[in-house]
């Protein structure tokens, strides 16, 4: 199986070629709570995640809400 390299939350990661954002959320175990996903500075909304295929060298951020004042 061929893989691609992405930068996920600042760290390099290999994922299967052709993986979508939705696939990545499963791989990263981030599918159990609401998250925001940003790919190359663009927000990927939940209804776009099944069709958004990740490319080699994509910069991906998966974000949640934590405590803050």
């Amino acid at each position, binding site marked *: 199986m061929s893989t691609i390299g992405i930068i996920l939350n600042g760290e390099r990661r290999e994922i299967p070629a052709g993986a979508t954002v939705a696939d990545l959320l499963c791989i990263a175990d981030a599918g159990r709570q609401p998250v925001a996903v940003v790919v190359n500075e663009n927000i990927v909304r939940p209804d776009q995640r099944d069709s958004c295929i990740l490319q080699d060298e994509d910069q991906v951020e998966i974000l*949640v*809400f*934590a405590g803050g004042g």
Partner: protein
Amino acid sequence: MDLLRLGTYTFSSRLILGTGKFSSTSAMIEAVRASGTQLVTVALRRFNREQAEDDLFGPLSEIEGLTLMPNTSGAATASEAVKAAHISRELSGSPFIKVEIHPNPHHLMPDPIETYEACKILAAEGFIVMPYIPADPVLAKRLEEVGCSSVMPLGSAIGSGQGLSTAEMVKIIIRESNIPVIVDAGLRSPSEACAAMEMGCEAVLVNSAVAVARDPAAMASAFAKAVEAGFEARNAGLMPRSSAAVATSPLTSFLGGAS
């Protein structure tokens, strides 16, 4: 009942609670419930599978009537704050954004220029913009003019517990503002929150004072009472100060001297 109006939203509670620095999520949730707050701040953070229980969205969404106000903490420029605001709105579904731009980690003082630029953009985009600002009446007025829904001058440095050291400037801001003024940052004790409300603030935002208390839920409750007391006292009309004593009992002379 007098309601706090922020944008198109109304709140019966005038205590806004921050969710940072608590020893655990459950301690934070208990404090939120005890405070009766209807508006809490949260911050964006990278997802970490090892700390999945730190995600606050789930636990906070179980509290009825609670609105989230994400902050832009971590942003050092207007463009970073705007980016954080867009991501936060996507995640929270809330139109509220606390604009917080402090480039210097040593004093955490808000950058007035970047804050102004970010607020101008976000207000035009329809956010309910709540900027954390230095206690500067000129800046506060300029932010009102670009469409902010409130201004949130600092009482003193974030997390410092130095209270209302900016009181005189905050009074000027209140006098000049047509939007709610909310003291944010630096409050240590409920009496300071009460004083801010008596002064004319429409709400106060408290985080550290509650989060690091020995009993956060009890402190949250104490702040809620103080905020209510201060608001009620202000509406009741505080008596004027006098430089001389003014007797409260009739000073008749029947006890002294022979008649």
